């Protein structure tokens, strides 16, 4: 699964994208955030306020309880501040 990161999530992790093999117990977007948070200090920092993190699956917003399904690209980012 391709993961892409933006804004302070990207800065804290130190990567703009990566491809990961996600374990079977990761079913929802929220599961993915919790699993990523356990991958080291940088990830723990990026996802410490897990409830704030927004998720897009194949470039569409989804709630954290949404199943990831056969997602090709999952984006994780802070609340948006455009406009």
């Amino acid at each position: 699964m391709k993961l892409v990161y933006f804004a302070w999530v990207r800065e804290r992790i130190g990567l703009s994208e990566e491809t990961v093999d996600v374990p079977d117990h990761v079913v929802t977007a929220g599961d993915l955030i919790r699993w990523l948070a356990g991958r080291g200090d940088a990830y723990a920092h990026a996802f410490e306020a897990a409830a704030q993190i927004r998720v897009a699956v194949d470039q569409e917003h989804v709630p954290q309880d949404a199943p990831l399904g056969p997602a090709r690209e999952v984006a994780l980012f802070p609340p948006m501040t455009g406009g």
Partner: protein
Amino acid sequence: MAVDEPAPVPAQLDVRVQAADFDVGAEIARLHAGRTDVGAVASFVGLCRDEGGTLAALELEHYPGMAEMEIRRVAEAALARWPMLTAVTAIHRHGRIPPGDRIVLVAAASPHRTAAFEAAEFLMDFLKTRAPFWKKEHRLDGTEGAWVAAKDTDDAKADRWR
């Protein structure tokens, strides 16, 4: 079916995500060019604001692809909600933007003003809360500033339309 009814002209939808500035007058003119049934164009221009005299620029990061698609989804929702709209334009810039420069334009055209005014506000409220853009501050003293924090009041403004 009334045979004398003219076929409805599909609304013109123009969404752009770009680094370059835009010409507000030219964009408004394009919204009603060649038509005489448009009675109202309402527009909003968002600018890079410096509140404390310390800002060198805002850096606007975006999610290429999704940014365009999400603004298009918001614009299509506006056309569904105000079917009398004849045209919608939404342009959002990315990259480094100094104080005073334009960041965003939304404009809506309609036979009458109410739909145009309401749609322009709807477009901005959902663009702010749904379009994947993030602002980072760069300071005049050369230091890297903070990421701009999202405001709960922006979510509340979008929720009014639900």
